[in-house]
């Protein structure tokens, strides 16, 4: 087991901070491959969330979470609030990037067998983080309260009604003193970030406990790697920060060239828009089985993903020794992508009655 002793910062301020903050504590050994791009996707996602929190706090100063004011306040953010348009666009594009990196991170974990013993619980925590991410994206898409947002809200209400008692909190009838839009804003700005904070703390704690999963090789087996490696975690953090700055640069560039869109004020009862790319793949299922597909399909997928560490329990990490599971996962992924492409090219059809 080789470890690299961390070197002291060269500047006086750096050494002062290093000692006062006890930064030697984060310079523990990690395997070299932990700093490669596929294994740093989770860290990149985390940095994206930090950008989302900061930009979200700024947007919250101008957003009015009431159905009669929401759309107007977004118009004000774009046209009146200082730097409002670019901050909103950075928030929007970072959300798109984070959704992509969180999905890539999950696929990497699936491909490299990083969910295997003793990391099963962390796989479940990761699924929770995926749900929180998609929940935040969904509620965020409703908040602008344009036609697209209102249609998303109507789907939310119908899905809540299908869930019976489980969906009560997401239904308009739950609280007559506060509109559903306002409650979704509360979820977006407080409940989901809190859930994210708790889950990410558990995720990081479990990674620290077990170490990063071993590098994939033909005969590599899953095991704990805590305390092992030729690199160190402080370098991992620096690279995470570097990728975080790149996300910011990318979101700023996209925000400048393609500002986040806003549709016309929403009119209830109509369906003339399509959902965002991360939800559009559900469109064909909804077309076939009705709104109940919005509940059943994600629930089935969640069950399927949750069962991965239960079904695939051999110790091997190599994809060539886990062909059945990976082929099944590839099939599921292909169906999702094909559904998304089909929905993208199809004309809009109404599902809500």
């Amino acid at each position, binding site marked *: 087991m080789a470890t690299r002793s961390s070197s002291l910062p060269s500047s006086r301020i750096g050494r002062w901070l290093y000692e006062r903050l006890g930064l030697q504590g984060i310079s523990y050994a990690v395997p070299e491959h932990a700093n490669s791009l596929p294994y740093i996707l989770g860290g990149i996602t985390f940095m994206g969330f930090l950008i989302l929190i900061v930009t979200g706090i700024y947007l919250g100063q101008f957003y009015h979470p*009431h*159905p*009669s004011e929401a759309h107007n306040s977004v*118009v004000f953010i*774009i*046209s009146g609030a200082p*730097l409002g*348009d*670019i901050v909103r666009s950075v928030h929007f594009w970072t959300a798109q990037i984070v959704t992509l990196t969180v999905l890539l991170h999950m696929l990497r974990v699936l491909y490299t067998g990083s969910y295997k013993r003793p990391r099963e619980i962390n796989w479940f925590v990761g699924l929770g983080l995926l749900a929180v991410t998609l929940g935040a994206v969904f509620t965020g898409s409703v908040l602008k309260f*344009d*036609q*697209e947002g*209102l249609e998303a809200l109507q789907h939310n*209400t*119908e899905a809540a*009604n*299908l*869930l*019976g*008692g*489980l*969906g*009560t909190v997401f*239904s*308009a*009838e*739950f609280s*007559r*003193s*506060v*509109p559903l839009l306002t409650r979704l804003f509360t979820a977006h700005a407080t409940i989901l970030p809190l859930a994210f904070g708790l889950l990410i703390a558990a995720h990081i704690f479990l990674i620290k406990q077990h170490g990063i999963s071993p590098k994939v090789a033909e005969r590599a087996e899953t095991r704990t790697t805590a305390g092992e490696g030729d690199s160190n975690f402080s370098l991992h953090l*620096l*690279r995470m*920060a*570097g*990728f*975080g*700055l*790149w996300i*910011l*640069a990318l979101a*700023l*560039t996209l*925000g*400048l060239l393609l*500002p986040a869109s*806003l*549709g*016309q*004020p*929403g*009119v*209830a*009862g*109509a369906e*003339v*828009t399509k959902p965002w790319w991360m939800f559009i793949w559900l469109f064909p299922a909804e077309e076939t089985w009705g*709104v109940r597909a919005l509940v059943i399909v994600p629930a089935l997928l969640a069950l399927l993903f949750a069962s991965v560490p239960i079904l695939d329990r051999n110790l091997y990490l190599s994809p060539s020794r886990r062909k059945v599971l990976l082929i099944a996962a590839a099939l599921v992924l292909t169906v999702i992508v094909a559904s998304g492409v089909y929905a993208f090219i199809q004309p*809009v059809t109404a599902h809500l*009655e």
Partner: protein
Amino acid sequence: MRKQVISILIIAAGLIALPNGGALAHGEPIIVVEPTVVAAGGEITVTGSEMEPGEVFVITLEGSAGSIELGEVTGTGEGEEGGFTETFSVPGDTAPGSYVVTATAEDGDTTTADLEITAPTEEASSAPAEMIEPSGEQHILDRTKAPGQIAGIVLVIAITAVGGFLLVRQK
């Protein structure tokens, strides 16, 4: 372990079986209110569908302050394709806030839709609320930025890109 899993599944199934208020599932009566935001004193159009012809519904406005009866309406049509479209006036003295428009059938079944009521305006008390056509088009806004702002954003992009490059290259 198995017992706990079974218990959780039973509880979840029980919760799903519980109603959560007005059901809006397919095949059951539903109502749509337009517009969804109206000033007190304005008018709303309530459209019901998936109803039996001849079925009578009481339309009420329910909010935190209480319930206001707007009127009665009878479903028309044939077979299971019955429904109604009726315009109601929102009383001018209705307090602004969030309301639920409820259609209650004679057998007690209800179906609901959200309605936001704002403070009354002169227009609202004298004319129907403006009906807006649904549109997937973009809201066109002037999004041109001052040259100084663009320069500042480009500078931040450059700084973050270079900073990121230096940090990612760390060995």
